[in-house]
């Protein structure tokens, strides 16, 4: 190889590297299990008055599959058991750098009929027996790296107050961090247990009687660049009332570093003015508040507002 060839190739790889940097600026993904890491060094020197170039040997490492899982309950506090089946939502995240299925279980601490686990097929956070199918053979479908799966634990009506325990374990294996499973990783490499132990457990206290309302706050940022100065964040506050409630109010402070966007307050798809007037909500300079008044059982209300990042 001549020096000129080497330069030409260096320029070609430079263009590729630049493109990769732009692409990775949006989401820095972990290297997938099974990816070969290939390294070759180059050498240039002067001998007999001419420049010579050569390459080193090429060494290759296969990236192992690091098994990790996260399991979070949506909402907090005890869940009240009423006359109907209680569907308690969870979010399972495949924190592995490869594709993985997870064994999931739901049990009651005091024994009794084990709650069923169902997959929230449409991801709307509401249990719908017509669409949301039971987990088959105690395992989730195979999830892509970083993918999440919403699950419901279905606690049967008439269950005595107790605690619900939901667990998730990587199907390839779990246990002490660093435990290895030779050849069991994606792409023919090894699998190794990550810092989470590739297992997660969430315990939910249950009690009889109507459940407390649950407020779920989500946010979305406009533009593909993520949170930047001038970006608009839309906050959605979803209040779920399993039982009826009196004089309910949804209130939220505007987060530091952001400014409320005037006229952006909405309540169940109706636009509310910012002023304290006849409509049920407003913005007082520090936060928003919407008075729901008396709320019927098994109802859901949504408040939305926007802020701009300063």
């Amino acid at each position: 190889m001549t020096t000129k060839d080497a330069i030409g190739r260096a320029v070609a790889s430079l263009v590729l590297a630049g493109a990769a940097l732009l692409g990775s600026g949006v989401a820095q993904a972990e290297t997938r299990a099974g990816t070969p890491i290939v390294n070759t060094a180059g050498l240039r020197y002067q001998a007999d008055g001419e420049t010579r170039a050569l390459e080193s040997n090429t060494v290759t490492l296969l990236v192992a599959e690091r098994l990790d899982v996260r399991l979070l309950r949506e909402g907090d506090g005890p869940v009240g058991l009423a006359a109907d089946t209680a569907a308690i939502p969870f979010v399972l995240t495949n924190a592995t750098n490869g594709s993985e299925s997870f064994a999931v279980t739901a049990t009651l601490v005091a024994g009794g009929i084990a709650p069923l686990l169902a997959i929230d097929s449409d991801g709307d956070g509401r249990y719908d027996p017509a669409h949301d199918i039971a987990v088959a053979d105690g395992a989730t479908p195979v999830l892509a790296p970083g993918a999440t799966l919403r699950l419901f634990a279905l606690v049967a009506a008439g269950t005595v107050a107790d605690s619900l325990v939901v667990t998730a374990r990587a199907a390839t294996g779990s246990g002490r961090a660093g435990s290895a499973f030779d050849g069991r990783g994606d792409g023919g490499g090894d699998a190794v247990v990550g810092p989470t132990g590739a297992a997660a457990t969430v315990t939910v206290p249950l009690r009889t009687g109507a459940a407390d309302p649950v407020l779920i706050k989500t946010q979305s940022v406009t533009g593909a660049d993520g949170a930047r100065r001038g970006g608009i964040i839309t906050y959605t506050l979803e209040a779920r009332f399993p039982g009826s409630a009196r004089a309910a109010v949804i209130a939220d402070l505007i987060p530091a570093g952001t400014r409320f966007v005037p006229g952006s307050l909405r309540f169940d798809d109706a636009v509310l003015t910012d002023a304290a007037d006849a409509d049920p909500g407003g913005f007082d300079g520090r936060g928003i508040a919407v008075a729901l008044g008396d709320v019927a059982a098994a109802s859901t209300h949504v408040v939305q507002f926007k802020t701009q990042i300063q």
Partner: protein
Amino acid sequence: MTLRILLAVVMAAIPLVTGPLAARPAGQAARAGGPLEITSSMMVERRSAAADGTTRVTLVKPTRVSPGDRIIFVLAYHNVGTQPLSDVVLANPLPRAIAYRSASPGSPAPEVSVDGKTYGALAALRMPALDGSTRAAGADDVTHVRWRIATPLAAGAQGQFAFQAVLK
């Protein structure tokens, strides 16, 4: 003192000299054939407790690496010819999944580059930003490292450079 021990361990752990090069097909051997040889290795640190209570760090070939693991890249060179060689430059374009961190203890710091063209100290390099301006480059931006050996490399001379990186 510590540095010298570390280097000695590295030398023992890496097959130096001709093995991989000699195994090349004839065409490549002719191209690579010359008085200077280079061997590249990817290693990981293994820590073990020594009898005197200190922690000993050795470099070993990795059995498995996963994102976040530290990898030590070692470049070993050897002038197997009979003449001194001048203007020796060892360069390592980084694999895409590798993020540069620093020179290894005991190794001279490499010159680094964020574009494969301009080399220098990391603090002196800048990156283009999306809005057309530039910003200071960071270790994550490094795409190439290289070492230039200032004085002619005598016949029989050998040595090695090493840098630390992280698997993204």
